[in-house]
């Protein structure tokens, strides 16, 4: 440490050692030991190992789980005091539900830890290092800041280091930057930002060519790679809308339940009822109010939804993401491979005046272009840069050229340089060795021996070609004089070139994309394209996909696009303003800029989905409401950080996922409403019992037989309803629109719940009075008359739930209009309700457990009238509601 005036990349190679307190001969053993003691090992392992018993225990401290466990304890206490009530069964059932919920949360947390395992694979096992003045091979985890390392072709870089010596060093920073193309490095000081500096090597990246020596300045979690790893691990996920809604619903219902329970407990004490009776009734009130089966059904519904999504190529990693997909306002998507097929193919070869080349000329130009290619061959198939592969494939298929032989003859190769935006090579030609350059027109333009008017004319040709969304590659070259044949100085060779022509390539749009984009538009979902491509190419693709229309591009093309360099200079307010104005194309951006866009969208309360595939996409994937990783082209790190993985990398699959997500949310609302309806007839008997001198119409076990028994299958059936066409014609639901709205509470408790309560209580008292009971009279719990009366009360609720079930299938329709046989689980649910309503009364094994008894058949038949009654009244309400809705819309 000598100076503090610049960052490490700004320091000259000579000063690096003093700054990092090292020397060309490396550190001494004492230094290494001391530094390792202070800084730790060069690994991205967490400071603390994943303490699974602790994390598992933590899951049992969540509000809902605690509620279930407390209820279970009360059940066991009650069972101990009164063994015949079967409360222990309930206790075990509640514990099972609590365990399932906790286990599920734990598994999700455990999976996040796996991302770290995947990241470790990016780091090498061993490294060549200078220690005590001699070269040695050590384990990479033993590196410390100040170590001098040596990197060679094929090596993975073990830590962030500053080069002080290098020869033809080229690295691929794809694991860090997502950029597939390799870059040349040197040891010169630079004023570039740290992550863009060409004199630094970064952990996790690969040496493609050459060798170099460097001083380590950051290891482990302090390396750029380690920081991304730490971030993708530490960054907590956003709470999904569904989590908020369920949390809110559970709290409200629990509050209602506990308050009512406490009030009636106090009332009972004042009325001088026994403590045991009071306790049982408090339990009854709480159990009746809490829809025990609802949350397990939630989980099951989401799990089944995720299975359906998997069939549509959308693998959901977090169950809540199933529903969050449906709440998306905006999708920020990559272009290559997601909107397009990621298969470059040559569509046209053009000469300098814009005319198409003849077949022979085109073939000659493409063979020339091969001299500037960087291809490898595996089992005869070319591999490498997609552009080079496209040229090779074209020559093989269209002209039957032996590409491998042409490549073998290349005398000198200058691989593609990202900064220079071109590659070059020397190959034998008809008139001796020929130097060829291939790359962006802007990069080749200054090397041509043409005057400005000629160049301007070619500019127009290139502009026209690029404007149609194609990638345009210029090919130029010159024959070398014998004296130049051994020349390797690129700058000396790159002058006085003749333009051979242009290769136009296209990455075609995926077939399903146009339809998917139009479905998104209809569903009010915004699409933002984030690409590293040229703005004109991006606009052309966006136009073809329907992301922007001609109106938007015609006169205001600049207003639809922002480039990465512009984005880098923009303040957040400006980005937000641009997004609100409808900017939806970000061209020439880096993957790291995605996060900036995601954050800006979240600032205006949009639920954002973002796609990504590289390691450096991981933080954005985690910060977004839904991170969508590419299953085929994505890295393991991106897949682990994401909520959703697209198995086919296809944009259309995201839209399918959104459709399923919306359908699932609609279904959750349906079964929540369905389940809450039965709470009405469960609560009323307890209120009546406490306030009036009447027997209790339902005991706790009977209530649970509904909540954790017969209501489960119909709820699951409602959770499996297929998406309706309307689901993708409505805008995304508003933020803050919960599951437990006033309308749902009023409808469930105040309308259908009251109807069910009135019918079941009516039948209860009919049987009692018919059997000789008089108002205010006592009746024993084991009296057959009482058991018959509670039996018919329970059976009538079960039957009326059939009418409720059918009605819940449609918001304004009857429910029957959706076709009963479309969803076989609905039929199963109905059959179950019927069979159970009969078994409650007439099957001794069931009636003995539930403490019910038989009634006359005409009473049971009367209970059936409840089905058309509740269905008819609900349908009438829907008709009125629809007419109001129509009037409001009109």
């Amino acid at each position, binding site marked *: 440490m*000598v100076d503090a005036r610049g960052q*490490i990349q700004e320091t000259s190679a000579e000063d690096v050692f003093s700054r990092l307190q090292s020397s060309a001969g490396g550190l001494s053993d004492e230094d290494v030991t001391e530094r390792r003691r*202070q800084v730790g090992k060069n690994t991205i392992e967490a400071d603390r190992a994943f303490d699974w018993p602790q994390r598992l225990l933590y899951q049992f401290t969540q509000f809902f789980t605690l509620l279930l466990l407390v209820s279970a304890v009360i059940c066991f206490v009650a069972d101990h005091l009164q063994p015949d009530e079967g409360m222990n069964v309930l206790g075990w059932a509640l514990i099972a539900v609590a365990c399932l919920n906790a286990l599920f949360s734990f598994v999700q947390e455990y999976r996040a830890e796996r991302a770290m395992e995947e990241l470790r694979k990016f780091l090498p096992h061993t490294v060549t290092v200078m220690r005590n003045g001699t070269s040695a091979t050590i384990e990479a985890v033993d590196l410390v800041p100040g170590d001098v390392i040596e990197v060679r072709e094929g090596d993975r870089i073990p830590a962030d280091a500053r080069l002080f010596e290098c020869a033809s060093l080229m690295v691929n920073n794809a694991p860090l930057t997502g950029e597939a193309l390799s870059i040349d490095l040197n040891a010169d000081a630079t004023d570039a930002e740290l992550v863009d500096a060409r004199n630094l090597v970064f952990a996790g990246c690969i040496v493609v060519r050459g060798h170099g020596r460097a001083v380590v300045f950051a290891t482990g979690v*302090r390396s750029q790679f380690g920081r991304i790893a730490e971030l993708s691990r530490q960054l907590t996920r956003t709470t999904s809308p569904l989590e908020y809604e369920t*949390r809110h619903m559970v709290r409200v219902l629990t509050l209602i339940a506990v308050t009512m329970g406490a009030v009636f407990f106090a009332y009972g004490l004042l009325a001088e009822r026994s403590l045991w009776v009071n306790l049982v009734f408090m339990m009854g009130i709480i159990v009746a109010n809490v829809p025990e089966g609802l949350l397990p059904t939630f989980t099951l519904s989401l799990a089944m939804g995720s299975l359906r999504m998997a069939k549509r190529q959308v693998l959901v990693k977090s169950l809540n993401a199933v529903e969050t997909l449906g709440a998306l306002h905006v999708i920020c998507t990559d272009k290559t491979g997601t909107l397009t097929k990621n298969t470059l193919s040559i569509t046209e070869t053009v000469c300098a005046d814009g005319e198409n080349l003849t077949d022979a000329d085109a073939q000659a130009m493409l063979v020339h272009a091969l001299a500037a290619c960087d291809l490898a061959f595996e089992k005869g198939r070319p591999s490498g840069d997609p552009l080079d592969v496209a040229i090779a494939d074209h020559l093989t298929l269209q002209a039957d050229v032996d590409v491998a032989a042409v490549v073998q003859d290349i005398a000198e190769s200058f691989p593609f340089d990202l900064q220079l935006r071109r590659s070059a090579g020397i190959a034998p030609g008809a008139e001796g060795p020929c130097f060829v350059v291939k790359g962006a027109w802007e990069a080749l333009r200054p090397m041509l021996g043409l005057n400005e008017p000629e160049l301007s004319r070619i500019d127009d040709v290139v502009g026209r070609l690029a404007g149609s969304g194609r990638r345009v590659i210029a090919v130029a070259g010159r024959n070398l004089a014998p004296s130049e044949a051994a020349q390797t100085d690129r700058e000396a060779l790159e002058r006085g070139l003749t333009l051979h022509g242009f290769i136009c390539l296209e990455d075609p749009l995926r077939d399903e994309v146009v339809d998917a984009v139009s479905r998104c538009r209809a569903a009010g979902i915004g699409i933002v394209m984030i690409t590293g491509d040229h703005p004109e190419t991006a606009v052309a693709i966006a136009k073809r996909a329907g992301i922007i229309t001609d109106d938007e591009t015609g006169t205001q093309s600049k207003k639809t696009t922002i480039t990465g360099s512009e984005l880098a200079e923009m303040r957040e307010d400006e980005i937000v303003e641009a997004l609100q104005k409808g900017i939806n194309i970000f061209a020439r951006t880096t993957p790291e800029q995605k996060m900036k866009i995601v954050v800006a969208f979240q600032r205006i309360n949009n639920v954002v989905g973002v796609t990504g595939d590289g390691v450096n996409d991981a933080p954005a994937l985690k910060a977004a409401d839904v991170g969508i990783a590419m299953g085929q082209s994505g890295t393991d790190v991106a897949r682990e950080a994401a909520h959703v993985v697209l198995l086919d990398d296809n944009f259309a699959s995201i839209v399918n996922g959104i459709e399923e997500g919306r359908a699932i949310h609609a279904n959750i609302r349906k079964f929540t409403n369905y389940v809450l309806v039965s709470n009405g007839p469960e609560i009323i008997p307890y209120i009546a019992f406490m306030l009036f001198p009447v027997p209790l119409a339902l005991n706790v076990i009977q209530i649970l037989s509904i909540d954790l028994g017969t209501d489960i299958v119909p709820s699951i059936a409602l959770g499996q309803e297929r998406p309706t066409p309307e689901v993708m014609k409505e805008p995304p639901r508003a933020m*803050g629109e919960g599951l437990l709205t006033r309308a749902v509470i009023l409808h469930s408790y105040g309308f259908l719940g009251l109807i069910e309560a009135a019918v079941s209580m009516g039948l209860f008292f009919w049987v009692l009075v018919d059997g000789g009971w008089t108002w205010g009279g006592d009746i024993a719990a084991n009296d057959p008359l009482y058991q018959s009366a509670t039996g018919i009360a329970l059976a009538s609720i079960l039957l009326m739930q059939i009418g409720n079930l059918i009605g819940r299938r449609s918001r304004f329709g009857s429910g029957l209009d959706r076709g009963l046989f479309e969803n076989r689980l609905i039929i199963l649910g109905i059959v179950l309700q019927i069979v159970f309503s009969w078994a409650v009364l007439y099957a001794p094994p069931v009636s003995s457990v539930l403490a019910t008894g038989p009634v006359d058949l005409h009473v049971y038949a009367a209970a059936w009238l409840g089905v058309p009654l509740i269905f008819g009244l609900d349908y009438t309400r829907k008709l009125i509601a629809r007419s109001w809705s129509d009037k409001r819309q009109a």
Partner: protein
Amino acid sequence: MKVLFAYDGSINGDWVARYAIHLASNSKQRVLTIVSVIEKEFASEALVEKIDRIQTACHDRGIATDVRLIQAVSVAEGVIRALDDPGGTLIVCSVRTRGDARGYLFGTAAFQLMRNAALNTVAFRIVQPGLLGNPHNILLPVAGRPLGISGGVNLLHQLGTSVRHCRVFHALTVSANRYCRLTAREMKQLRLQGDSLVTAVGRHLAQQLDNPDILVDTSARVSEDWVREVIIDACAYKSDLIIVEAMGSSLRRGFRRNDPIERLLNQTPCDIAIHRQSG
């Protein structure tokens, strides 16, 4: 403000020394007091050698040094003994290099010094050693009081020329329970409230800095978890250094693992400075 650097001879101390030199170079006095608390009467050769290097670096930049090797029971006590003008000195120290079960700050000398309301203390955690104490992009999370950023402004002043972009960030925190029920309209109202507040703080900061080369940007967000928002913002805007004011309440009760400052120190994607101004 004079700069006093509490140095322990560790590599982490060397990283923090770069900030200390930088801060001293922009102080009026251009003096760096280096305090090292030693157990024995004499300092080890290694420590002396390291301090020499810091002195050389200071001399190269025209900064005078005043080295004090103090025998004391604790580092905090040694530092306090070395202070000539407590109110006019900025104490620079480091947090733990690795966050163990105790966290990064809790129980350290920096923590003890911060609890002393009469001192100006800043503690650094270095996550990007390659910056060599030269941050370009600063993130300044604020709690909402314009006057509350005065300590941060002083630090920014003393970081001087290396700073190019300063982003004032305010996360308007609401409870998770309320957050889940916020309607779009309520959210917009809260955001506007946050925006107006952060704009005022940004304006105040720009006036205080009075440096047209530093771009001052502002941002407000409504959230249930401000730490998460700060981290995301630091990532999105590639911040080099987060400057956070230590809250008196946290200091009084002592940091714990889930304390926001400890979480920030643990999860930060860039260097972070926790500071407390006297008074």
